[in-house]
């Protein structure tokens, strides 16, 4: 073996050995622009401050591999980013560590953590990181001045706005939007949806756009459908539309009326190898200043009230970020907080009904 190959081999082995160093923590998250924002807002400053290295791992939905790891008793993830519904479910199943929210640092303005987080966002095992929304988006250049859709009801109005619509292929969010379009106030949506008549009513509303719908599953699809002119409007995650509008200069706009917002956050799997450092990381990342820095890099709202005023311009530009966030007051006039409690109970049943509805003609 010559020196060169020996060198190559040792560096390769060194690379392999790195994640097992005791001081490092492994964080599993969404990847893509989400993890890019985490890297700049959290990982780099955290490592600089504490000396704890971070190994970033991407997953389609971290809940799936984390459940598999905990089930197998071989947990390699210290911190994972979960959707609320997954966090509630796995927390109830004892697969996540409970996190005492009173241990979290106060807001930058001195508000205690318990009051600083938006009401209802703290839960037993998860500290919220950001608030994102599913809302209707459209290509503004396709509509005459003042003739653009202006309410969630317009999404279901095929006479006023003929053409295809992009619809999320999931009962969650879609059923809620159908009810809001049918005139149910946001505050009553889940009461209505909890009854059989309410579910029938939501599906009846969906029937009106069934023949004009193009269904999507991956978040990258809606901006593509809009850009190709395949749909006149589409449900979309707000961050994807923001990305296309600001970074790629597309004339896309978000219709905030009838938005359904959810939050996601950090959890620690039961049996994580380095829980102490994991907790340190969560305390750091969800404190006011880093949280605001995160919101400047990706258009998801910060769950900390004290961090909201700190959110400045979109990173590297002079466009203010705040109006692009689901949590901006003007965007919240008719908004619905997605109910994790409702969906853990009804997801299987309504999922089957939704799939059966898709297949029936």
């Amino acid at each position, binding site marked *: 073996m010559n020196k060169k190959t020996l060198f190559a081999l040792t560096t390769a082995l060194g690379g392999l050995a790195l994640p097992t160093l005791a001081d490092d923590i492994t964080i599993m998250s969404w990847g893509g622009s989400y993890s890019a924002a985490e890297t700049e807002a959290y990982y780099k400053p955290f490592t600089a401050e504490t000396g704890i290295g971070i190994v970033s791992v991407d997953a389609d939905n971290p809940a799936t591999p984390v459940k598999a790891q905990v089930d197998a008793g071989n947990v390699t993830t210290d911190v994972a980013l979960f959707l609320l519904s997954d966090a509630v479910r796995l927390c109830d*199943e004892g697969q996540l560590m409970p996190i005492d929210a009173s241990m979290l640092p106060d807001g930058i303005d001195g508000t205690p953590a318990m009051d600083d987080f938006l009401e209802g966002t703290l839960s037993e095992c998860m500290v919220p990181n950001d608030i994102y929304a599913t809302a209707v988006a459209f290509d503004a250049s396709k509509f005459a001045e003042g003739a653009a859709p202006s309410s969630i009801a317009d999404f279901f109005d095929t006479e006023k706005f003929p053409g295809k619509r992009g619809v999320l292929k999931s009962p969650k969010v879609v059923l809620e939007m159908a009810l809001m379009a049918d005139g149910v106030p946001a505050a009553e949506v889940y009461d209505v949806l909890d009854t059989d008549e309410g579910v029938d009513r939501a599906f009846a509303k969906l029937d009106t756009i069934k023949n004009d*719908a193009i269904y999507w599953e991956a978040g990258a699809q809606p901006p593509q459908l809009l850009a190709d002119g*395949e749909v006149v409007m589409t449900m979309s995650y707000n961050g994807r539309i923001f990305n296309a509008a600001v970074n790629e200069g597309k004339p896309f706009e978000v219709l905030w009326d009838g938005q359904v917002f959810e939050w996601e956050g950090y959890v620690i799997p039961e049996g994580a190898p380095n829980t102490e450092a994991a907790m340190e990381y969560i305390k750091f990342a969800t404190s006011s200043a880093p949280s605001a820095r995160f919101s400047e890099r990706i258009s998801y709202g910060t769950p900390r009230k004290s961090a909201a005023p700190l959110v400045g311009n979109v990173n590297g530009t002079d466009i203010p970020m705040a109006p692009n966030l689901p949590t901006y007051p003007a965007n919240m006039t008719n908004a619905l907080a997605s109910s994790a409690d409702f969906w853990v109970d009804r*997801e*299987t049943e309504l999922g089957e009904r939704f799939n*059966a509805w898709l297949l029936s003609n």
Partner: protein
Amino acid sequence: MSDVASQLTTADGRPLKAALATAQARAKRRAFFLVLPLLAFIVITFAVPIGQMLQRSVYNDGFSQTVPALTQWFEANPKGTVPDEAAYAALASDLNLMKETRMAGDAGTRINYVVSGMRSLFTKSARKAADLEPPYMAALLDIDEDWQDPRVWNAMRTASSPWTLDFYTIAFDRERDADGKLVKVDENQRIYFKLYIKTFVVAAVITAICLLLAFPVAHLLATLPMAKANLLMILVLLPFWTSLLVRTTSWIVLLQGQGVINSILVALGIIGDDGRIQMIYNQTGTIIAMVHILLPFMVLPLYSVMRVIPPSYTRAARSLGATSWTTFRRIYLPQTIPGIGAGVLLVFILAVGYYITPALVGGADGQLFSNMVQFHMTKANWSMAAALATMLLVGVLVLYWLYDRLIGIDKLKLG
């Protein structure tokens, strides 16, 4: 003859037969050690996971592991007993255990698969379990009226054993009513069985189209001079070497409403701008994209079989007066059967289990059975996913058995 053989001995006086047997056994052992790594690999990466999957479809201990008291009550009281105070006391004690071990979610999830909306019944009740006081029946009904629902009690009785057929019941679009009888689920909830049949039909259509398209191509490849055949072969293999996702998205670009084909048709005036044809995000799109992706799996086995068919047979048939159709039907086609069989089986099995292409271009009605497997995997309902996957596996095995009976597996030729 055998007498003579048994009398023969080796130089050291041992009977020849015994010496030969030892020598052969040693060689067999050596050969076995050579295949051992592969055998271990197959057992670890194939047999064990599939076995576990099969087991998961009939085994779910989410509920049974936290209900020792209820299990006792169920054992002591036969099916159909109306739950009494003792039953509710057992339930209260198990809810307490769930609270301590934080297993209420697990238990509730297991019951929720059978009776929808019952997960929160468990999590809610377990949270309040410490404050429960006798009489337990009244106390629990006070938390939620659903505790007297006979469907919940039936579901708990079944789930108190980890071995269950519940997931297959669901997979056949059935459920148990209040009396425990199997009934069909509501029309608007029926999905799995219909989709199961549809998946096999779509896979059969895709296989048939692949065969029709691949047969002439393979024949051309097999009869052209080597240099030209190789060039064409590369054209067949090129898509094979391209990423699946790239190929699927290229179809989107070609077929969508504002896509290449529609735009050309509009430019040529064949269709109007408002009459663009919907060729993707439906079953048509699924079939087109999947035929394209699976075509090489049909061409290659056909080609390898056709290449070695001696042309002299067909020439002989023609010279003896057969028409070209008769020659094809009676001489050429029968010789290609091993290739057709291999190609059909390969394409069909791959098509039945396909999921990514239908997910991307399938739209509402282009989904296949595997999309439901994936749906339940992402919802962490592994037992249901396993039951559905087992159904697919059984379907494929039945077809394989049929193939063996009708054509014979020994006639299969993959290359």
